[in-house]
């Protein structure tokens, strides 16, 4: 094997181990050519080959009555009845966004949107969970602004509403921001496309943008190693997005689908042509011959390996029967898109690369796609994970609980996200049944009574303290969010963000989190339809909080019977549902007020959770619940404040005094929901609860939020004051001013 760059062997420069290189040689029966080695290095990268995750992911539940397509295709597909189905997928674009936030985020959207229309679905929404370091630092504000602008630029131009997501700020993401992107699409059952190439002699079309040197080894290289001081030099590996071309590509592909012109369709993402062609051949049980001399190029003098691994954006690969060649050309010409026959399907089971007729690569498809080596690492439980929760008296009690509430409401993790979602077109396509900022997004299906609901959830801090409990809690919270709008959860997609899995501590976190996710998905009946693993979110040896992010979809039977978290009327009963016992461990209160992340988070009772969620859903559908809000970051006090702010109505609350006031107000535990109901509905609601923990804790009304316990006033603040603290915070921080907490 010739050595292109001096002392190190070529395989090592491409990120392969010596044992992997030997493995490749034995599969080929010879040493690989450089173009072959480059292709193997991509396909066997962590990003494409799932080398550290595959063995563990096998344990996740994937089947279900409504699952039309599980993991393995470009997106999962869920049946929602009457011939309609939802395609969904979440992915990470963490590493590119950390280097170039605008283009990193924009091309993240572009990639996930292509995954959705590759399965034949029309993208109907995006949701974007984002995690950054503390906004006190200018670089983090730069990253936030860039990422939000990038999401907006791409999604808005495509005409796909961004309807949800979440944003968290923790120091642990300072050098490795998380930019996860989720897209969902709508498809009729008959319109579903597979990413397969089959039928000997069928044509392989490359459609869309020309291929350039941009993003050579971008996603796969960036996502398969830790960052160090050379990160800045990797900027050229970040691709540049062109949403206009992608919009044309979307319309042309769906038109070709409608006209039955496509045998299979696959997007070009990480790994470029190498990955797309070999995966199409693999799924079709076929082979593909490619002639790279036919690939339209952006610049002269590109090497064969560069053409094969380029990650230029806005390209699709289609398998087409020869008699449809003219029709494909006609549709693409009408949309002013390049469409070029670059190869054909074969029965060889091999990916063969030609350059103007000369064979320059010949590899078994199975070796590329299915046979990347897997690694199991000895897990090592980190010392910060403890068995016992913290004692209740670990921290001093704040003297002024009103001020504590205002500080928490102004926390970047709790305050209004309006500054973000106003930059996203969240209404285009006119299906939005709820405005952003609530528990979950709900879209109607035009012409149908039903709708679909979506949410994303992640909580790295909890997973850091206990990855198994944390993952169980995250899945349960996503389902609870859907229940709180009146939806029935059907399935999840996941984006697993972790550090370097070669280290025992990280491998432990990953293994435990996957186990927790499995338990919760099984208990709640929400199988996994696919997703993405993002490892090596680590810089200078310091990893992010382990963060399995869940995207969940649910079904709404009647879109006119949904609910928001806003208080609706004066004089409604306020009730607390659920039996969880709040704790300070891992809470926003612990971090923000006491400056610590420690202890052991409470576990979620999944059996009770399931019952609590169906109760809240039933209550909404029957019209008994006039608002529902999950108790989450900032505890019960912040939950009540948010509902009061959203409704413009205060509340008077009376709690029992068995706990320390600060934990009563701001402690967190998964499984609690605040609901309101009209006085006349109180009895029927309690009857419906049928013994589940549900009790009245107060009444809505007035212009203040007051919370008493055992006769003592804990909190008593005017609504206008909490509204100001919650609303103005993010805008002020981004503008470089201090948060007006409590001012």
């Amino acid at each position, binding site marked *: 094997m010739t050595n292109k760059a001096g002392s190190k062997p070529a395989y090592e420069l491409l990120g392969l181990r010596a044992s992997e290189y030997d493995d490749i040689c034995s599969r080929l029966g010879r040493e690989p050519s450089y173009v072959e080695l480059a292709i193997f290095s991509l396909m066997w990268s962590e990003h494409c080959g799932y080398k550290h995750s595959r063995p563990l992911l096998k344990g996740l539940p994937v089947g279900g009555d409504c699952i039309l397509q599980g993991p393995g295709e470009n997106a999962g597909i869920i049946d929602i009845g009457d011939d309609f189905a939802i395609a969904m997928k979440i992915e990470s674009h963490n590493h590119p966004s950390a280097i170039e936030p605008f283009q990193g985020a924009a091309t993240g959207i572009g990639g996930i949107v292509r995954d959705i229309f590759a399965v034949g679905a029309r993208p109907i929404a995006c949701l974007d969970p984002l995690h950054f370091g503390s906004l006190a630092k200018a670089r983090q504000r730069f990253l936030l602004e860039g990422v939000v*602008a990038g999401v*907006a*630029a791409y999604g*808005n*131009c*495509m*005409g796909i509403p961004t309807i949800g997501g979440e944003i968290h700020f923790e120091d642990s993401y300072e050098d490795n921001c998380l930019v996860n992107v989720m897209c969902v699409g709508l498809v009729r059952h008959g319109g579903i496309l597979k990413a397969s190439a089959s039928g000997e002699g069928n044509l392989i079309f490359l459609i869309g943008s020309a291929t350039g040197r941009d993003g050579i080894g971008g996603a796969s290289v960036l996502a398969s190693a830790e960052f160090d001081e050379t990160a800045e030099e990797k900027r050229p590996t970040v691709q540049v997005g*062109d*949403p*206009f*071309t992608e*919009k*044309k590509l979307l319309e042309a592909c769906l038109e070709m689908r409608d006209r039955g012109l496509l045998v299979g369709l696959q997007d070009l993402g990480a790994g470029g042509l190498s990955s797309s062609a070999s995966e199409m051949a693999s799924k079709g049980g076929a082979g593909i011959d490619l002639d790279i001399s036919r690939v339209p190029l952006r610049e002269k003098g590109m090497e064969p390996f560069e053409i094969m691994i380029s990650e230029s954006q806005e390209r699709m690969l289609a398998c087409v029967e020869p008699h449809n060649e003219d029709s494909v050309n006609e549709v693409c010409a009408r*949309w*002013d898109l390049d469409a070029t026959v670059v190869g054909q399907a074969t029965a060889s089971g091999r990916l063969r690369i030609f350059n103007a007729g000369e064979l320059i690569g010949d590899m078994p498809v199975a070796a590329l796609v299915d046979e990347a080596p897997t690694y199991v690492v000895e897990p090592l439980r980190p010392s910060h994970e403890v068995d016992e929760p913290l004692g209740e008296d670990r921290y001093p009690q704040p003297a002024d609980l009103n001020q504590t509430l205002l500080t928490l409401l102004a926390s970047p993790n709790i305050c209004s996200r309006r500054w973000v*979602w*106003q*930059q*996203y*077109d*969240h*209404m*285009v*396509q*006119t*299906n*939005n*049944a709820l*405005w952003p900022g609530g528990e979950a997004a709900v879209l*109607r299906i*035009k012409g149908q009574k039903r709708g679909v609901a979506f949410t994303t959830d992640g909580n790295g801090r909890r997973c850091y303290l206990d990855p198994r409990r944390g993952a169980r809690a995250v899945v349960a919270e996503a389902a609870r969010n859907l229940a709180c709008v009146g939806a029935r959860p059907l399935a999840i997609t996941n984006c697993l963000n972790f550090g370097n899995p070669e280290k025992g501590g990280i491998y432990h976190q990953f293994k435990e989190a996957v186990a927790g996710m499995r338990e919760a998905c099984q208990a709640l009946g929400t199988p996994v339809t696919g997703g993405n693993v993002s490892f090596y979110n680590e810089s200078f040896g310091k990893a992010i909080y382990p963060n399995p992010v869940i995207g969940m979809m649910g079904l709404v039977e009647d*879109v*006119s019977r949904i609910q928001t978290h806003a208080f609706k009327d004066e004089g409604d009963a306020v009730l607390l549902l659920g039996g969880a016992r709040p704790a300070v461990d891992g809470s926003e209160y612990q971090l923000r007020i006491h400056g610590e992340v420690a202890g052991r988070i409470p576990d979620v009772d999944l059996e009770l959770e399931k019952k609590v969620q169906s109760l809240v859903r039933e209550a909404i559908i029957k019209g008994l619940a006039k608002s529902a809000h999950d108790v989450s970051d900032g505890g019960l006090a912040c939950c009540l404040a948010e509902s009061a702010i959203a409704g413009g109505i205060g509340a008077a609350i009376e709690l029992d005094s068995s706990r320390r006031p600060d934990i009563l107000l701001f402690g967190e535990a998964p499984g609690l929901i605040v609901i309101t109901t009209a006085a006349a509905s109180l009895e029927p609601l309690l009857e419906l609860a049928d013994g589940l923990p549900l009790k009245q804790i107060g009444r809505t009304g007035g212009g203040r939020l007051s919370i008493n316990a055992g006769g003592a006033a804990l909190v008593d603040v005017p609504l206008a004051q909490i509204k100001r603290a919650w609303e103005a915070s993010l805008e002020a921080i981004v503008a470089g001013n201090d948060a007006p907490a409590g001012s």
Partner: protein
Amino acid sequence: MSTLPQTETRTVRFGVVIFPGSNCDADSHDAVGTFAAAAARYLWHKDTGLDGLDCVILPGGFSYGDYLRSGAIARFSPIMEAVTRFAADGGLVIGICNGFQILLESGLLPGAIHRNQALKFVCRLVSLRVENATTPFTNKYNQGQVIRVPIAHMEGNYFIDAPGLASLEQHKQIVVRYCDESGSATKEANPNGSLANIAGVCNREGNVFGLMPHPERVCDPVVGGADGRGVFASIINSITQART
């Protein structure tokens, strides 16, 4: 806003232009479809035939990606020649958001658009005051009525020179202005810095209307409101009136 009786056939014919990069074409098409008296068909940007149409809609979106000034390329589309003739013959033309920008670029409406004052894309519900309820696009509203309609744009900051503004005022060509919920056109209620809180203008003849807000997005209470129905109801009303 009431619709015409269901017994009416769909006699008022709308055409919705699809430029490459349009993304509110389907929304406009679907909004028209909720009116019993109206039907919509799509028009391809390379087409030139507008036969049999009563009203042409230039929808929102990012025509040609809007990598250049918004609407600056779309104005050269073959269909824009046909639209210009159609307007000269008195046909009704409405441009929404990017469609408004295209009408400005093509000279069918006076003025120009700057980038939003805050330099950010903004998507939210705003209040609009109907300044002229006598146009073919607003006759089902009351003069001075305040309606809630969403905006979604990066470049909606309308501008015209002083004589141009005076002329707009004089000929009642300012059709809608941004206002607060009580109807005052205050600086705070202006979401993009547009001159004199202008949200939409018509030509002097009154048959070409452009606006930044999206009435097609609020034609169904299920998705957040129905205040936009008046625009389509007005068009249908004026077409049917003209026929009788």
